[in-house]
């Protein structure tokens, strides 16, 4: 009540802060930018224009203006705000309810002028600390941003490679399919009535020889792809393929084995002849949604791969009953020339198997999937793909595999828990790529499925810096990466943009 207008004298701290003090009088709590509205000895008009009061009612500890503008330096208005100059640090507005509440809010102590609280002016110290940390941050940002440029460059190259590879694979697949189509005609022809058998047989034989040559080319081609993949070591599809090959080291041999088996016993009939392309695609996509192995951890891959093969058989048997029977009927039809026929059949099946070759399909699929990911505006997050980062806490090892999954494994035994699968970028508007969301993890008892929010901050290194579980089964992970580093503002700007006076 006793608070008449108190002018802000240039504080000692202010003088110390800049050494270039200019005395400017203004009512307590008013920022420089609004000083002009508070002219001594003239009636004061509330900043919202709602009323005009004598100037001695500014800062008289009674709220006259609806917008609180008459009491910038007292706690009288519930919606008021107080400006601390904080010379040496950065100026700030605090709610007027924090004026004289016994708690030091402004580092220049100006908010506690009548509460008995003993506040120390900490602005210079805070300013120094802030400058230090800003400096460190600026350096990190600078280096991080350079690294980011590199990442963008690599990502671009990698992306092109992959796109090329995919196109190539898809092209050759198409070629193969065309050949299969051709061979189908041959096969059908070979199974035509006997009268034209001889010529056809000869013709077929020649064609078949041609096809065999082509087949050899094709096999070489497939091998070449694998070689190619090896060359492009470091990318996901390759890594997966490699691990796949390790798991199945005879992959080359198994191709021919399959071929032999197929050609000899027809034990694994090919996809229906009528619409081979569609069928095989359907099959692949079914498989994708049901058992897409990439959704599982590497250690599970073996099992999954087995499952996949089993499923392959089962599904083939279940779903293709009619075509299979027809195939059987065709087979049971007495061939004109068993030898020729078996050769034709063998080649046909082999080509079929090339088209449907799980590895080949998997390569295509992985490439497609990888290309489909949103790796940021300049694909700067692409390098995280197929990588995993761990953080060890007192109890658990947390593992973040970007664009794939987050998991938690007890340090001292116990099984791994899925804390969420890649969901989407979930940053706020304007900064979408600052937060990743992983969801649909393992369910909690009477709770939600586990999920993880990953907050990305700029850093030179790519590392998980902390994890927590703010809410039951909702995890929070902090992750630094150069990929989120923004182009640094000049250091001067950073350091001097914040201080008034």
């Amino acid at each position, binding site marked *: *009540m006793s608070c008449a207008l108190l002018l802000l004298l240039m504080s000692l701290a202010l003088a110390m802060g800049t050494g270039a003090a200019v005395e400017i009088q203004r009512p307590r709590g008013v920022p420089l930018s609004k000083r002009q509205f508070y002219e001594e000895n003239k009636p004061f008009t509330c900043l919202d224009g709602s009323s005009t009061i004598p100037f001695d009612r500014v800062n*008289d*500890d*009674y709220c006259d203006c609806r917008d609180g503008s008459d009491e910038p330096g007292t*706690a*009288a208005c*519930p919606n008021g705000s107080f400006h601390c100059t904080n010379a040496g640090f950065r100026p700030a507005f605090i*709610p007027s*309810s*924090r004026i004289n*509440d*016994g*708690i030091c809010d402004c580092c220049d102590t100006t908010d506690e002028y009548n509460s008995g609280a003993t506040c120390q002016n900490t602005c210079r110290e805070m300013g120094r600390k802030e400058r230090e940390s800003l400096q460190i941050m600026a350096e990190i940002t600078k280096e991080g941003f350079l690294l980011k440029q590199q990442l963008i460059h690599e990502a671009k190259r990698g992306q092109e490679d992959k796109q090329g590879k995919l196109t190539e694979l898809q092209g050759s697949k198409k070629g193969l399919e065309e050949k299969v189509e051709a061979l189908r005609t041959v096969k059908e022809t070979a199974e035509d009535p006997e009268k034209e058998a001889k010529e056809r047989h000869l013709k077929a034989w020649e064609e078949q020889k041609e096809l065999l040559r082509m087949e050899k080319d094709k096999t070489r081609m497939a091998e070449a792809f694998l070689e190619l993949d090896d060359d492009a070591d470091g990318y996901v599809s390759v890594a997966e393929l490699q691990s796949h090959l390790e798991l199945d080291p005879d992959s080359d041999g198994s191709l021919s084995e399959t071929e032999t088996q197929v050609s000899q016993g027809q034990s694994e009939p090919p996809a229906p002849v009528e619409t081979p392309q569609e069928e095989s695609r359907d099959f692949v996509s079914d498989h994708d949604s049901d058992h897409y192995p990439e959704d599982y951890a590497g250690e599970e891959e073996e099992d999954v791969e087995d499952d996949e093969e089993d499923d392959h058989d089962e599904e083939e048997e279940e779903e293709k009953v009619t075509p299979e029977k027809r195939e059987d009927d065709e087979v049971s039809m007495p061939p004109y020339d068993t030898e020729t026929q078996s050769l034709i059949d063998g080649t046909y099946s082999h080509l079929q198997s090339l088209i449907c070759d799980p590895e080949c399909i998997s390569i295509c699929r992985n490439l497609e999937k990888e290309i489909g990911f949103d790796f940021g505006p300049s694909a700067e997050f692409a390098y995280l793909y197929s990588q995993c980062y761990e953080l060890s806490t*007192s109890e658990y090892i947390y593992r973040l595999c970007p664009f794939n999954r987050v998991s938690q494994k007890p340090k001292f035994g116990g099984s791994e828990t899925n804390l969420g699968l890649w969901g989407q970028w979930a940053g706020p508007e304007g900064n979408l790529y600052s937060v990743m969301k992983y969801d649909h993890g393992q369910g*909690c*008892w*009477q*709770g*939600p499925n586990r999920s993880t929010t990953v907050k990305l901050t700029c850093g030179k290194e790519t590392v998980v810096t902390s994890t*927590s*579980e*703010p*809410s*039951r*089964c*909702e995890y929070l992970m902090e992750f630094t990466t150069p990929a989120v580093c923004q182009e640094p503002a000049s250091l001067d700007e950073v350091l001097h943009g914040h201080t008034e006076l």
Partner: protein
Amino acid sequence: MGPLLVLWLAGCLSGTWAVDRGNFKTCDQSAFCKRQRALKPGQSPYRALLETLELTNTKLTLQLINDNNKVRLLLELYRLQGNMTRVKINELKPLKPRFEVPDVLINDPPTEPLSLLSRDENGVVLSLGADSQRLIVSAKPFRLDIMEGREVLLSLNSRGLLAFEHLRIRKDTISYKIKTKVNSMWENIKWVFSSKVDPEGTENKEETEAANEPTEGEEEKAKEDEKVEDGMWEETFKSHTDSKPNGPSSISLDFSLPGVENVYGIPEHADSLKLKATDGGDPYRLFNLDVFQYEVFNPMALYGAIPVMLSHSAQRTMGIFWLNAAETWVDISSNTAGKTVFGQMLDYVQGSSETPQTDVRWISESGIIDVFIMLGPTPTDVFSQYASLTGTQAFPPLSALAYHQCRWNYNDQEDVAAVDQGFDDHDIPYDFIWLDIEHTDGKRYFTWDPHKFPQPKDMLQGLLDKRRKMVTIVDPHIKVDSSYKIHNEIRSKGFYVKSKDGGDYEGWCWPGNSGYPDFTNPEMRAWWASMFAYDQYEGSMENMYTWNDMNEPSVFNGPEVTMHKDALHGNWENRDLHNLYGLYVQRATAEGLIERSGGVERPFVLARAFFAGSQRYGAVWTGDNAAEWEHLKISIPMCLSLSLVGVSFCGADVGGFFKSPSTELLVRWYQTGAYQPFFRAHAHLDTPRREPWLFGPENTALIREAVRQRYALLPYWYQLFYHAHHSGQPVMRPLWVEYPQDTATFSMDDQFLLGRDLLVHPVTEEGARGVTAYLPGKGEVWFDVHTFQKHNGAQNLYIPVTISSIPVFQRGGSIIPRKARVRRSSSCMEHDPYTLFVALSPKRFAQGELYIDDGHTFNFDKQKQFIHRRFSFANNALSSRNLAPGSQFTTFSWVEKIVILGASKPSKATLKTHDGKESQLEFEFDASMSVLTLRKPGVNAGLDWTVVLQ
């Protein structure tokens, strides 16, 4: 804090969100309740032996005999000061003493002399003082009637349901049979001897013996004939067997209340304020239990028990206090309960002679009958009468009336700091942040998790720097762990509750295998209290307070999730005192908090289980509710029921404990909780975070506004609690308490009064567009506290609402002090000025009060350091005068603004201060709303002053 998350129970829970009724007994599954309830109203076998009547200055005693088994009872009648009657009935010669509840009454209730008005062979008539009140004792069958004039107020045993299972010796055991033989031989010898040796005595003596001897013989015979029923000597529920070494011991008594249609109280039940008739269903049960996911609207027992019932009619309010701490069931029947409104009207039109009547029957498993009949006649009188017996509400520290932020669990110190900062960042006030069980080192109470809370004092200091506080949980189950100091000391001192075999009783609770300290033992309580000393409870500081959860006690693997009834507290079974355990836990803790400050600071302790008298030790809450609209609604009648029986400091978990509330429900719950006494948000471990700022800026603003309304009103809340402490008047009141003749208010569950002057009708319906509030009082007016719109009383008022609406009305004729400068904690507002809201009655009159003290010590009591002022507006003058001339206190607070609602425009306003100086006040007048605002009187809130309007 939630019960039973533990795995072995998970199976039983089957994942549904509802109470598993199978875990809890029905009356039929509780042997004594079943036996007692099988007795039907009729002729009572009890007869008063008028020749045994003795009348002393303080009491009347009289023997009763059960003509069926010849067991004699001793009846004691007392007339107590303040218009109460106490009726005690015990066995005349029990085999061993029966339990009488200690430590609940604050003293031996002072008596007033009873005088004998008349006496004949049918009974006696006693005078209960001047009000033409009489107590009539009828001999055969025994019954008691309390009359006023020609009107019967209340009758006992009028339906003949007095039943007293006398203690007896088990007869189906071999040892008994041998003993009986020997005894009867000995009796025969004795009899023969006595007759031979002393054939002639005085006439009197002979008479007495003649009266006694055959009776005893008959008694034996009658006892022999008694049927041994199932469940008398052993009872099994689910996998638990209750050994019942003392056999049947239950008691029952009926009360008839002519002219009464409404009874209230007997918390804790999740049911409507007005109690329902229990015919055809289970009686209301009073047995402190940890009920997982309780359901609303049923008579099942919950965490606490206060065996006090209020009866109310337009003519009179009375109370029945059944002082018994054993498992208790209360049956209610009413001759009007079954009738529809139309049926009742028909009765009225046809002049049906039947007066409404409510019959009540109390059944307890053991102990004695000890009933206090509080004769009112007004609600205020009943509150005073009950307070004179069991004491008043503890006066909490002012900050405890502010907002509390809780969650199971704030994970670590960083989490606490972040939440604390979150409140500042979003400019939402709060005073207390709470830590649930996870803060401890392996659920060892009085300890801290060394990884999550390595520096508790730093954390507490951080809160103290912001003038905020913390509550940590200390539950009464102690981990059995030889490396745990608390356990070792309790064990070595022999302070644990014992099992029936004499070893330390152990059960499962949060820490796993746990012991249960015997809080009924005063030495144990003193030791427990000493554990709260700053040097004992490491990491504690003066801004840290305590929460006692699970004090029913909860025993996860015990029968009905509580302690075995044959567990021993000294010589008494848990059966005898079960409902008292929680009270003792809270008491010992509150005493610890007082002691650690050298008796200076007021404690704050929240407990889940309670009993009559618990109000003296702190706050209670309605336990583990759920994030459902029904649970929000039931919080009102649940806290009102508690308020009626002494416990004013009541609240429900804001947001609901189990499940996750919709944003709308959360906002509505904050709005409701802001106007209930104990205002704490809490959430289950498995629910997503729900700090107020997590639901978008709009909802943050809504919650901020609700919390700010609470803070602005803290001066009024504090004053109401001062009165609750001082005179036992409830803070939160059903409307009928203030409008006892207005029958429209008798069964309201959706609105309530705070004190006399604020009427709150929170929005508790999902998607509500409007609410209909009942404004009571013919000829009165009410002012909307937000818009200052005036409404007439005695009407149903439809109020359109939006999501920001909290319908609250100030009574015309009242003056309410507020602090408009809401800060980040209540402590920060200590010296802030007041705004007075003067709501004028139609006769342009208003009255109010202001109470101020230091907010946290006992100095208000011990040194009379407080300010208590009366504000009166009459004859166009508002004045402040001292209500407590003997008190001394000074405040920095002043009066910054006076808002007069329903005013007319004055030509000038003159302020006269205590030193005789006069000055003119500026004012604003809003003609459309008739609101006069006086600008800045600037007078100190502790001084005399007057404002005259001309």
